[in-house]
Structure formats: structure tokens, C-alpha cells
């Protein structure tokens, strides 16, 4: 069996041919937030395209799922907008769907954010001069969103086996079934993780380094250039 040191494994992960730095993804989210608010259809498609490229590079396995969701939302808004009077409940759902469509490029990038390892995220946020505590908290948040979604599914499966189903007639019982295990899990994971991080010296006051290389590379510059130049050209033409 081939032996890899920790550094080799880390470098294999972060220095593969197409690894987009978390800093680039965060910057794209920030730029897209403002660009989308004043975008027309062409600029929207362009930003969606760039987000999709980042998704294909970093989280290929989610491409099909996210594409299907997009198509579903688009089809719903198109069909309802054409055939129904959007008022009341339907209007409210339609507004929500339109907002989801509008912010979809950002949500794709947010999904990419969950694919980074905690150490890569912490390292990036530290380099952005975010306070250490907040950097740890934010990176843990992103790392554990998919984890807790899966855990919620597990709780649901467990409840089904025990014959428990969510019911509006017994809201407190339903809440106990689903919420309490999640809170317990948070405390349990927190204890384990804190022990692990303290052992690795996270609390030691010194300049922190990381095995994860999150510095900007050619691909980052290419993507950022495409983003900036695309937005500038489209705004100039308009």
C-alpha cells in the first residue's frame, strides 16, 4: 500500500489541476449579489453560466440535481405566470420561486462552498482577516449543513420505523421527535470536535499555518477575469 504523508494528501486535494480557491468563490458570491440586483436577462445568463462552470469544476456530482431543480422552478414560474392570476397563495409561492430563480447563481456558489474542507475554509477566512473565532464558526456552519440535512433524513427514517410521523395534530410530539435529536447531536459533535481541534493546537496563540494551499492560481484568475470583464462589458453595452 502506497504511503502518503499528511502534507502529500493535503496537497493532492488542494493542488489538483482544477481547484478553485474558497476566496474566489466568496468573491464571486459577493460580486454576484450586487451584479444580479441590477442585471438584465443576458447578464443573468452570463452569471449563471460562470456559477455553473465553478460548480462543474468543484462539485460535479451536484450538477444534475441543481440543474433539475432550476428547470423545475423555471417551468413552474413560466407556466403559472402565463396561465394563472398570480394572487393570494399562488402569488406568494410565485414570488418566492422568482426570487429563488433570481438568486440561483449565488445559491449554486453557496452549494460549492459546502464542498470545501473546514481547514481550507478556516485558512481562507483567516487570510481575509476575519476574527479567528468567527472564522471557525462560519467554516463549521458550511461544513455541517449537508451533514445535518442527512441527519434529519436519518431521524425521519428512525421515526418511520418506530411508527412516528410528523403530525399537525400533535405539534409538540413532532417537534420533540425531530428537533431534540438535532440539538443533542450538536452538543455531541461540538464536544468531539472541540477535543480534536484543541489537541491539534487551535487555541495556541501563534501565527497559524495550514496544509491546505488556498492561494489563488491561474484558474482563479481566469474565472475572476471572466466575471469582471463580462460584467463590465455588459454594463457598458447597456
Amino acid at each position, binding site marked *: 500500500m502506497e504511503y502518503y504523508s499528511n502534507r502529500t494528501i493535503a496537497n493532492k486535494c488542494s493542488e489538483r489541476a482544477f481547484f478553485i480557491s474558497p476566496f474566489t468563490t*466568496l468573491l464571486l*458570491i459577493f460580486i*454576484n*449579489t450586487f451584479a*444580479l*440586483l*441590477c*442585471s438584465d436577462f443576458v447578464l443573468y445568463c452570463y452569471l449563471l453560466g460562470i456559477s455553473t462552470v465553478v460548480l462543474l469544476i468543484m462539485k460535479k456530482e451536484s450538477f444534475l440535481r441543481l440543474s433539475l431543480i432550476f428547470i423545475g422552478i423555471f417551468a413552474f414560474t413560466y407556466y403559472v405566470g402565463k396561465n394563472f392570476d398570480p*394572487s*393570494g*397563495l399562488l*402569488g*406568494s*409561492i410565485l414570488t*418566492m420561486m422568482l*426570487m429563488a430563480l*433570481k*438568486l440561483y447563481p*449565488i*445559491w449554486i456558489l*453557496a452549494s460549492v*462552498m459546502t464542498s470545501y474542507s473546514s481547514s481550507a475554509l478556516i485558512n481562507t477566512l483567516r487570510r481575509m482577516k476575519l476574527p479567528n*473565532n*468567527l472564522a*471557525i*464558526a*462560519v467554516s*463549521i*456552519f458550511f461544513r*455541517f*449543513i449537508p451533514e*445535518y*440535512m442527512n441527519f*434529519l433524513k436519518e431521524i425521519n427514517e428512525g421515526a418511520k420505523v418506530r411508527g412516528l410521523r410528523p403530525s399537525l395534530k400533535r405539534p*409538540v410530539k413532532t*417537534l*420533540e421527535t425531530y*428537533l*431534540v435529536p*438535532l*440539538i*443533542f*447531536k*450538536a*452538543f455531541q*459533535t*461540538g*464536544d468531539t*470536535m*472541540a477535543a480534536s*481541534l*484543541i489537541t491539534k493546537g*487551535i*487555541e495556541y496563540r501563534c501565527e497559524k499555518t495550514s496544509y491546505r494551499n488556498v492561494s489563488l492560481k491561474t484558474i482563479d484568475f481566469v474565472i475572476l477575469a471572466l466575471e469582471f470583464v463580462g460584467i463590465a462589458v455588459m454594463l457598458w453595452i447597456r
Partner: protein
Amino acid sequence: MKIRNIIITALLAVVGFVVSMVGGMFTKFFGAYGIFVHVSIGSLLCGPIFIAMCRKLKTRGTIFIYYAIMGIVYAIMGFIPMTAVMVIAGLIGEILIANVKNYEKNRRIGISYLVSELIYALHGFLLLLAFGTEGLAETFPNLFTLEKAQAIKTIFFDPKNMTVIVIVQIVASALGIMLGQYVYKKFFDRAIKKDGILQ
């Protein structure tokens, strides 16, 4: 603040975020009345998380970090002005707790939660105050037309509507806290006693 507490706060923020998302979906069933219960369902459901977090961690800064994380997540989802609202909610919540000993007092935690969630619930109103109708339409041209911004202003600046929003929010937060106390007593207090058998 200890690293353990920061990690647990972040993880509870994940739980709160997931629960708020689920609660937010339900508000759509209220149709046009959804604006009155926009945050309320989330406040009701997140009460147990907040109580468990404050009672178990008992550390200054917990409430601020909880709301700040939510704010950062809003920013990443494309709602950057919400970050300021959430940071203010967290700061005021933290100030209202006042003392580290108050993290054990349900009433003080309740007041802190109630006020922070009220600020969160009034984010539309606060943003309207900050930007104005024209500013809102200019800053977010694709989300708000001038007419839509004015319609929102009409809703928020009508004393009756505002009273309903505030009352619904306060009732939901109070129920959330009561639910939180019930859940805490039933599940978490007992766990502490079991753990303490060797102490």
C-alpha cells in the same frame, strides 16, 4: 469564549437555520397574510434551540455569534443588508442578557430572545427606514419596483398592520421560549443530572 462553545454555537446555528427554512416554507401557505407571520414560525420553532444554547453554554458572546453567523449566511445567500440587521439583533440580545449569571435565568433569556427576534422580524421595516421607498427601488431594482416598495411601506407604516406584526411576533417568541423551557426540562436538565452521578 472557549473553542467548544463557539463550535456548539455554530452547530446550533446550523440547526436553527434548517428549522427556520422549514418554518419559512409554511409561511407561504398564509398567502397575502404571510408578511404578518414571516419570521414568527421560525421564532416559535427555534425557541428550544436558543434556550438549550444559553442554558448549556452560559458564556458571553453566544447570542451575538448565533445571530452573526445567521447574518453571514444571509449575506452569502445574496441578502447582504440582512447581515447588519442580524448583527444588531445579536448585539441587543447580548446587551439585554447583561450578566453571565443571567444565562441561567429563563426570564432574562426570554426577554433577550423576544427582542432579538422582533428586530429580525422587522427587518423589512428597518431596511425601509434605512433606504426609503425610492432608495429601496434604486438599490434593488429587480426585486422592488417603486410601486411595490410603496405598497410595502403602506403595509409597514399602517399602525394596525404594524401592531398585528409585532403582537404575532411577540406571541410566537413567547410560545417558543415556553416550548424551549419545556423541552429543556424534559430532555436536557435530566441529562445533566445523569452526567452528574460521579460528581
